[in-house]
């Protein structure tokens, strides 16, 4: 997948470099320059050819502009953050999951240049999308990666390694079970439940829900 390879792209490295340089310059200039900041991201889109290849259709491609102003130590600080969001739905397959059925959403944000572009676009984009989506749901702290690593790993394995669809099904299964346990007043068991389910799947069908037959002994 070579999405947004050319021209109109925003990537984290460039953004951070810019922010870093600006902040550095701001410090050199006695912090005056930091009072008014603009962080603007270009829109990120999945080119039409790639949309076709993956069976995605565009739902939303828009930019979001937010302005913050605050008074710090008697000085007014204004920041403008413009972020881009693109949402695509995959139409090729649909997973029927009771009442909560509906199109499955994938969200792509910026890719990265360099050697790992191919891999990181495939991995980092959904992972960072999770960060964006999951951020408001859980407390963001330095340990968030440690906490989410194991469930993410499990999701992939019980879905079937190498199967994107499997990961989606497994993710929905684990998530639904967890919510179900919380909603039915068994919140204490919600985390235990998803691991029990994972263990069960691994014991009964170790190649994963949608995985193909492999040697598992």
């Amino acid at each position: 997948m070579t999405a947004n390879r050319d021209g109109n792209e925003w990537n984290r490295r460039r953004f951070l470099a810019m922010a870093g340089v600006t902040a550095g310059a701001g410090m050199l200039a006695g912090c005056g320059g930091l009072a008014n900041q603009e962080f603007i991201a270009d829109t990120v889109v999945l080119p039409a050819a790639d949309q076709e290849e993956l069976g995605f259709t565009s739902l939303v491609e828009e930019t979001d502009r937010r302005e913050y102003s605050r008074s710090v130590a008697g000085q007014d600080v204004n920041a403008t953050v413009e972020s881009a969001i693109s949402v695509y739905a995959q139409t090729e397959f649909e997973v029927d999951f009771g009442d909560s059925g509906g199109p499955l959403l994938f969200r792509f944000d910026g890719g990265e240049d360099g050697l790992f572009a191919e891999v990181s676009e495939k991995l980092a984009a959904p992972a960072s999308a999770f960060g964006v989506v999951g951020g408001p749901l859980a407390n963001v702290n330095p340990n968030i990666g440690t906490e989410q690593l194991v469930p993410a790993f499990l999701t992939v394995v019980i879905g079937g390694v190498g199967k994107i669809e499997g990961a989606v099904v497994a993710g929905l299964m684990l998530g639904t079970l967890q919510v179900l346990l919380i909603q039915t007043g068994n919140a204490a068991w919600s985390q235990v439940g998803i691991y029990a389910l994972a263990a069960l799947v691994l014991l009964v069908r170790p190649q994963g829900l949608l995985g193909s037959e492999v040697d598992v002994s």
Partner: protein
Amino acid sequence: MSDEPRDATATAAADADAEVTGGFADRWANFRDREISTVLLTVVGVAVFPFLFNNFLDGYTQLATLMLIYGIFAVGFDILLGYTGLLSFGHAVFFGGAAYAAGIFSASVSSSPLLVLLAGTAFAVLLAWIVGFLSLRRGGIYFAILTLTFGQMSFYLAASPLAFLTNGENGFTSVDIGSLLGVIDIHGGVPFPLSMLVDNMLYVFVAVMTVLSVAMANRILHSPYGTVFRAIRENERRAEFVGLNVWRYKLMAFIISAAFAGIAGSLFAIEGNYVPLESLYWTESGRIVIMTVLGGVGSLFGPLFGAGLYLYIENIVSGFPTLGPFWHLILGVVFVVAVVLFPDGIWGGINYVRDMVVGGEDE
């Protein structure tokens, strides 16, 4: 692997050489292969360790105690990873589980340290029987993930549904450790001749357990039973065709390894008078993998050094003025360097240097 040359012919050849030439290297090899000398080396090692550690390496006895505890854990883990070739990623469940069992036992049944130790270890063994019975149905990465799953399950069990037993996220605080055999205060000082080397009874207790654990591991690994473990590591299918019940041996390796984790876990509860919930978390399982690999997979003493180095960086280097905050990075660099330069870990490195000095001998 460093244990390779110890098969019958090589040992016999070394013995014959020792009688004929009587060279230093041969005599050393001869000495080293005897069980009593392994035990003696361990005794000397744990006896002088706190003195050297406290005086030359900025250490303190409590950390030395912790190093030995994790050393026991790592030695046990190495029986599974290094000798049987099974990567368990959920060994925290036995370490933490034993710590909780020991703690709860001490609070509600008996506070005698030996009984507490026994209770914790027994709990770990029984738990390993169940977890191993289920996990060992799968091999390779599936085994690792299953153990990880059981580990995480136990963490969340202890965190919430069993909080009435484990005191949830606060950790188990009511550990109550009495005196050893009814007379010796385990948190007190030591009598004169010993006090030149050690300043703390708890260290002596843990050190004795370490020596016993190393002796036990040594005995197991040099018995025919241990040879079967190695056969399974080298080629599971061939071992099966020879007529061995591979699954049963794997389960026993898992249980033995968990028993060591149980000893370590119980000592951990006794040492700290407290069981943190994190002792069940998957990072604890990761730590023991790193310690073992760092020290040297497939060697008896390597994991002890690995545990020591890990805890040294975590507790001492992290207190250095400028470098301190980067201790995670330093640990990572040390790990990468060790794996790249000495794939057999610290112990492999020590062997390499020894061979250069002594002149290759039997490797």
